[in-house]
């Protein structure tokens, strides 16, 4: 039985001592907020000459309960290693937990300092020189990520456009509340699903919150748990969803940049030809996905009565206006 959430400090100190080169113990253990499906802990390994800032990503309570769309933490660690070799900025993985570590499933990686909160990244002076270059950085990073040889990848869910649409259709139908605009979007997506496209590794959640940003731009791509084999245009479309622009509606790429800059950098870095129509397909599906995810908050609210969940449920309408602007623009 792996240690539960409350008392992992002794095991972690032992893991640091035995698995992290030069470490004598662990200090400063702190549970970080965010990441509902995984536990994320910050701590530092103590050494003879200072501390190594680290992150532990661990299955809740150490026990793996695999969601159907999420990859196992062991797989996530392999993907981060492959991404690092491909020149994608990532926090290097230091150690994948072993049964003898008594911490359950998970891995330890370097803690990269920076900012993930969109409103700060889009507003604060600290990131003023980062914002103009980040769209191109995203294009270059995605090109490198999509070029990773499929033969070297661990086993991953294969999900091209059509099957992603069906997955969210089932979630929407299970929710049960009628959303005519979602129906319109599902219909459009089924009629416009890309056929026979080349499939690659896709990050699956490439947006604010999962990008560690410093004064010069993207420092690390985090949270690989939704990685799968899919249409590479998926990652380019998802980061353009209006929900991730945080009010900067005229900067489609994450509220900081232009599509053209991301596309040009993607092609220049050898990512292949960008198909703007397919990117739009994924932007539409992305808006719809986020809208459907907002509606599912209602299920959680009915269990725990959380006002926060309740109000997120009322944010699904935001994606409906975005979907109408994409699919039925006023001429």
């Amino acid at each position, binding site marked *: 039985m792996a240690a539960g959430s409350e008392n992992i400090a002794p095991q972690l100190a032992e893991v640091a001592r035995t698995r992290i080169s030069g470490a004598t113990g662990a200090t400063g253990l702190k549970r970080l907020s965010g990441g509902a499906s995984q536990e994320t802990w910050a701590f530092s390994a103590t050494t003879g000459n200072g501390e190594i800032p680290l992150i532990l990503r661990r299955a809740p309570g150490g026990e793996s309960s695999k969601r159907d769309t999420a990859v196992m933490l062991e797989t996530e660690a392999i993907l981060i290693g492959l991404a690092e070799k491909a020149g994608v900025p990532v926090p290097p993985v230091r150690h994948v937990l072993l049964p003898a570590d008594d911490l359950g499933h998970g891995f330890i990686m370097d803690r990269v300092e920076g900012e993930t909160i969109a409103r700060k990244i889009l507003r604060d002076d600290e990131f003023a020189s980062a914002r103009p270059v980040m769209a191109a950085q995203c294009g270059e990073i995605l090109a490198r990520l999509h070029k990773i040889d499929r033969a070297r990848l661990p086993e991953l869910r294969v999900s091209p456009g059509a099957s992603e649409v069906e997955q969210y259709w089932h979630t929407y139908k299970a929710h049960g509340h*009628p959303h005519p605009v979602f129906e319109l979007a599902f219909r459009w997506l089924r009629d416009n699903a890309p056929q026979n496209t080349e499939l690659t590794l896709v990050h699956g959640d490439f947006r604010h919150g999962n990008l560690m940003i410093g004064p010069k731009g993207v420092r690390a791509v985090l949270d690989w748990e939704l990685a799968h084999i899919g249409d590479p245009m998926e990652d380019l479309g998802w980061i353009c969803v209006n929900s991730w622009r945080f009010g900067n509606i005229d900067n489609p790429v994450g509220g900081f940049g232009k599509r053209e800059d991301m596309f040009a950098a993607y092609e220049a870095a050898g990512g292949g030809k960008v198909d703007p129509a397919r990117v739009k397909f994924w932007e539409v599906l992305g808006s719809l996905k986020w809208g459907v995810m907002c509606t599912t908050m209602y299920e959680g609210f009915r269990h725990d009565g959380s*006002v926060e969940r309740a109000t997120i449920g009322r944010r699904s309408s935001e994606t409906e206006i975005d979907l109408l602007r994409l699919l*039925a623009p006023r001429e």
Partner: protein
Amino acid sequence: MQDKPSAIELVEAVANFIREHAMPQLQGHTAFHARVAANALDIIKRELEVAPAAEKQERERLATLLGHDGALEELNRELCGKIETGELTLDTLALGEHLWATTLTKLAIDQPNYSGYRRALKEWQESW
């Protein structure tokens, strides 16, 4: 008929109480959740103001589109079915107009500051 204050006045007073008196005394997560609670009360207030007339109009548009009257939720389910099967498409101009009108109302209640809503209102004004 209920006495004064109206439901709208009551909910507004509670939201003001949370923001002006309770929140300054709170910290951290509790302060954050108090803000969320006040925002939820704002949604209720706008819904009380806007929904009665808007839902009447929504039902009238649905009755025209579907050719018969009914309860609002049932009409919406029927509309969903017709969009799913492709029986109703945006080629029917009244469908687009209905979806726009309904969605603008939803946003006016749920999130009137949302960027996509603000932009849609601007585009509408410019197109007239």
